[in-house]
């Protein structure tokens, strides 16, 4: 029982973590991206569509990544090159994604809802390791994406804080004018950050449909993109903090189903609301955003 819950926690945490890592990279470059939700939803839908029509999961993943890239590319054009208000731009892309995926979904599968199911990506097998009590099922019975996501945590940390590239990226987020004067191409760095995040967020979306649900429902992302934003703040812009915060929300989401299954008199809506309310409470409790990059959210136009 506990094992199922913990296992579920890790897998629910994964898409959030992937998106949050992408957002960390973007925020370190100085941009606040509200459009994570849009990229995730697009990734989810197009991954599933591609997998369904082609029969290939690999193609599905590729399509999911491509969708994430496309959404973030539009964002990059608006935010980096045109230096528009970042919050509104992100929100626009969220609305856009809901619309586009909705239109395509209904067009492709009719309002009657023909079955739109694919076989999900199987979990990896680690042989005897999975039989270790408690730890076994929790850590060793996951699909490849989960391991990828968690392996990314120290990797991103290394790249951002221990390489010259990361230093340059953070400089762009700290003070773009100064970075520019030093010869760093702020526009290019921010584009790269957004595209990298697009890949990860698209992947996160693909996870939702290809691993978790095996199908698509409208608005399947259900606000996870926004939760990812909160995760970056809660994790204090540090990779392991992000991982911890993601697991926390993964637990809240896993809890939904666990408690529902217990069949108490508590209304199920409470559980559905739990992750969001929790986000709010934890953010309020933690307060302060002093650890964020100094130029976060400020549009930068090259002189």
């Amino acid at each position: 029982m506990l094992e199922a819950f913990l296992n579920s926690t890790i897998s629910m945490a994964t898409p959030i973590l992937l998106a949050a890592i992408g957002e960390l990279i973007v925020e370190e470059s100085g941009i606040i991206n509200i459009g994570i939700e849009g990229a995730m939803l697009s990734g989810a839908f197009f991954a599933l569509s591609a997998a369904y029509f082609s029969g290939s999961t690999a193609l599905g993943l590729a399509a999911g990544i491509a969708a994430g890239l496309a959404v973030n590319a539009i964002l990059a054009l608006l935010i980096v090159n045109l230096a528009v208000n970042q919050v509104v731009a992100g929100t626009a892309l969220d609305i856009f994604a809901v619309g586009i995926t909705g239109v395509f979904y209904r067009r492709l599968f009719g309002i009657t809802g023909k079955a739109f199911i694919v076989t999900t990506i199987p979990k990896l097998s680690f042989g005897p390791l999975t039989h270790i009590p408690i730890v076994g099922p929790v850590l060793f019975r996951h699909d490849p994406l989960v391991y990828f996501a968690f392996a990314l945590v120290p990797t991103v940390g290394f790249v951002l804080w221990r390489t010259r590239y990361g230093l340059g990226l953070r400089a762009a987020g700290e003070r773009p004018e100064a970075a520019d004067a030093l010869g760093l191409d702020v526009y290019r760095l921010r584009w790269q950050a957004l595209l990298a995040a697009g890949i990860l967020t698209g992947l996160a979306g693909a996870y939702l449909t290809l691993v978790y649900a095996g199908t698509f429902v409208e608005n399947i992302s259900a606000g996870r993109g926004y939760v990812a934003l909160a995760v970056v703040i809660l994790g204090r812009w540090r990779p392991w903090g992000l991982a911890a915060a993601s697991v926390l929300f993964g637990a809240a989401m896993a809890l939904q189903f666990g408690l529902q299954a217990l069949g108490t008199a508590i209304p199920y809506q409470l559980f559905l609301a739990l992750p969001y309310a929790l986000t709010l409470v934890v953010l309020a409790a933690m307060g302060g955003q002093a650890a964020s990059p100094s130029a976060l959210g400020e549009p930068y136009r090259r002189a």
Partner: protein
Amino acid sequence: MLLAKNITKRFGQTLALDCVDFEAHRGEIHALVGENGAGKTTLMNIIAGRLRPDDGEASLDDAALPSGSALAALKAGIAAVNQSPMLFERMTWEENLALGGFETDRFDLAAVSARARNLAEHLGFKLPPPGSTIEERSMAERVRLEVLRALSFGPRVLILDEPTGVLAPSELTSFLDLLRRLRGEGRIIVLITHKLREALAVADRITVLREGSVVARTTPAETSESELARTMIGELPPLSLATPVFAGAAAVLSIEDVSLERGGHRWLDGVSLSLRSGEIAGIAGVDGNGQTELVEILAGARRADSGEIRLLQGADNAALAVIPENRDLVGLILEMTLWENVILARPLRERTTRHGWLDRSRAVELCGELLNRFRIRAPGPEATASALSGGNRQRLEVARAVAAAPKVIVAHNICRGLDLAGTADVHRTLADFAAAGGAVLLISSDLDELLETCGRLFVISRGRVRETRDGERDAEKLGMLMAGDWS
């Protein structure tokens, strides 16, 4: 040899540089002086590759300098240090330097630190403790770090734009020594400054710019401070204001034992002083010793941890007008119209509001009056604040402060960035205000300004304020006090 020929640059309608020729030799400190807006910074930005000239070209040792790319200019051997240090506040100083020319094959902060240490020793200054962020460093340290970073590129030309503005007098001498040492290495040092005394002290040659053209080329031996000043503005400098009036009147502002602590640092430590009506008093200090915090507390934008600020003689809150240091980011809202900026001041807003309803026509009228009375050059009250030049923005701020009919005006670094005429104008306005019975508190890092205008003089250092005694009114002694030497 650094050579710039025929440089011309326009910004919209304004001709910033008009066929300017400039040259500097190896092993020379060349001072480029002029008023604000004369074009010094523009010229240097062009040479340093940050701006593209409309006409003309620059070359170093007969090789043409690339234009429009800061990086290319760096590679060609031109490094520039800005007026306000362009460092990354939340990063450590090692990381900041790593973004400079201390290139290593692998990313290795320890190596960067070691090389920086070598260079710093060679130049004779200390580095901050390992791993500390720029946020925690003083302004003087930041300037030095930026110079270090610029030097790390091994430039043949080092351009410094007003580097001494934030230095205390004692730090100034060592800084000028540093420049001499660099000159000794065969580099070309271009020093942009409006501080004529410094230029005369350290430069080999001086070029004077006025309104985009070169009006004089000379050496310290051939000229004097007043001569330079005259060349800079084209006429005799305006008479500075009359000797400060000191009425033995009653105190009107009382600051009692104000303290402020944030983030484990004591920004203000038991600050006490009182201001009498009719007097102009000054607080001298190097930036970053608590002045900004004190100003914010006086403006009501920040609360002190302890202590009291009292306005006496039955004055109310409207009696204190504060002019902040950061004109463009705090004193004005550039995207709003002039009349809207004028009513930012609460007393003026109250004057133009009735039962919560804003009387727009009255506000516009009030603004128009101010524009006239203070001779502010602007298209009109409906113009956006961003349309005004720096000097006129400052005039507007002073006008706004005076218009509120306060009993006390507090001004922080009010003449920074203003030319001689503008400075004299502001000082005259303040003197008139004092003569009419108001009290003025000038908080500034400019000793000249303070010595000229103030009666009583205080010094602030590390959050503590002390009144100067009779024998202490000279630059050297004041410099020591500002540096914290209160023995």
